[in-house]
């Protein structure tokens, strides 16, 4: 559990003063932080409504971890941007077209099947991404955040793989619900591996991997879990729905922000 920990004295990081890199680095950090923020929001919607007490606890814990990661990523984004904004201002005072999260994470939580399959598809990517960043990123600040987040996300992934296997190979109904969720969410998975100019710039600087490079390991893990779960990998295009990382969202994000940002918008400048 991240809680509300803050990083200690910041590590020296030459990337933070690299003017040419700044816009792309800022964009990329928002992509990381916005995805954890919006998935944290969706996960927190389960609070008190889970199918078992243990799930209520686990879902709240996952949401808490993701909000903790958001504080780190958006905090660093604000520093890199250098315009005096804070993590909270980025989270609470940007409108939808300035959000850079994956479309996958903003879709409604649906039933537990959709929530778990979404988390599985995301965590499988998130874990690979953090693992690469913690070991290889040329940015010490990114490495530090990734290393902290990786511990928690390793647990999220382990837990969600276990649940997907057990429910996929559970009753006829649990199998059907998971397969339906997989079919529904599959067209949103390709976005995690589709790079653009921002990705090329940060990959070129050694900060982050080329998104496409994570695909084979993701495919291998997903195939392994789906097989154990007796679920069928969809044959539809995985990249039919994309654009969130460039600010083109589904209709759902505006409603998430209307709810999430309500107090900051209704009482501008207040301290909470």
């Amino acid at each position, binding site marked *: 559990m991240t809680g509300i920990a803050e990083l200690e004295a910041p590590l020296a990081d030459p990337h933070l003063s690299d003017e040419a890199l700044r816009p792309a680095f800022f964009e990329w950090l928002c992509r990381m932080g916005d995805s954890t923020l919006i998935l944290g929001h969706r996960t927190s919607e389960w609070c008190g409504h889970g199918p078992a007490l243990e799930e209520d606890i686990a879902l709240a814990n996952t949401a808490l971890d993701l909000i903790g990661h958001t504080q780190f990523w958006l905090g660093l984004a604000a520093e890199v941007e250098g315009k005096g904004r804070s993590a909270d201002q980025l989270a609470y005072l940007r409108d939808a077209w300035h959000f850079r999260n994956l479309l996958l994470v903003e879709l409604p939580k649906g039933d537990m099947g959709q929530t778990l399959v979404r988390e599985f598809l995301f965590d499988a990517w998130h874990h690979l991404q953090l693992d690469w960043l913690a070991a290889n990123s040329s940015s010490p600040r990114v490495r530090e955040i990734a290393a902290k987040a990786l511990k928690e996300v390793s647990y999220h992934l382990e837990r969600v793989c276990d649940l997907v296997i057990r429910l996929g190979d559970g009753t006829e109904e649990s199998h059907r619900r998971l397969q339906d969720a997989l079919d529904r969410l599959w067209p949103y998975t390709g976005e995690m591996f589709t790079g653009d100019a921002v990705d090329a710039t940060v990959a070129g600087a050694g900060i982050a991997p080329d998104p496409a490079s994570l695909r084979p390991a993701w495919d291998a893990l997903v195939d392994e879990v789906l097989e154990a779960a007796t679920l069928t990998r969809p044959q539809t295009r995985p990249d039919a729905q994309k654009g969130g990382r460039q600010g083109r969202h589904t209709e759902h994000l505006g409603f998430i922000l209307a709810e999430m940002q309500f107090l900051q918008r209704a009482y501008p400048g207040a301290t*909470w």
Partner: protein
Amino acid sequence: MYAQMIKSEGTKREDMSPQELAFQARIDRGEKIEPKEWMPEGYRKTLIRQIGQHAHSEIVGQLPEGNWITRAPTLERKAILLAKVQDEAGHGLYLYSAAETLGVSRDELFEKLHSGAMKYSSIFNYPTLTWADMGAVGWLVDGAAIMNQVPLQRTSYGPYSRAMIRICKEESFHQRQGYSIMMTMAKGTPAQKDMAQDALNRFWYPALMMFGPSDKDSVHSEQSMAWKIKMNTNDELRQKFVNETVPQAEYLGLSVPDETLAWNEEKQGYDFAEPDWSEFFEVIKGNGPCNRERLEARVTAWDEGAWFREGLSAHAEKAAAARMAAE
């Protein structure tokens, strides 16, 4: 206090069997009663009611605060509120486990909650209408709960006592986070201060009701106190709560909504107005502002989660069968 009006079933001392007398003597000596030891049926049943009601209160208590998680005004407040609601689910888990040692399953207790046969604390039938309510709930509701739970750490039933020790550590953090929200708002903009005052106005009397009716109307207190599953009377705890809370409100610059409130030098405590007990009994009967929504939310979560629980059980059976076949 998360347990209100618990019906207590005991035997008068003069009618006690030698076994019951010996049991009472152990309690009088301050010994802890452990799950496998003999206990009077009335003690067991009363404890199940009390621990069960407390557990249900933790679970239903997630809802009024969960109502504001997605609208928390900063990332830090969101994280703290999530941690708090997660703790409450954890408290529910400890308490259901303590109840299980008395021979009742969690599913049986859920059934009784869902059918209305068992209650949860009246306080959770009040709505949380503004962000200041997250402050008021932490400060007043958790504050009132602590008043009752701290002495229950010394209760006679071992598993209950141990659950209370763990719970109390977390509850004091909850109360502090509530007070911190109130403090920020009371020192904030005029609109924030108004919001904080409004939250205090709405939660003051419902918080006083959490201790249950006055001792003179509380028919079950005596037996429960003899068994040390109730450590103080309702009026003692309510007085202690008022004595501690009034100076905190003054420090915030907020007014307790009671014109009769006055320091009484002689009793070294405040004189204060009783809550409207007819309102309390209406809430207990199901006519509070949120009774229907709260119970429906729990029943819906349970019913819609049936396929999930059945799926996990079915997988566990398949896995066990596969292990058997392999051996």
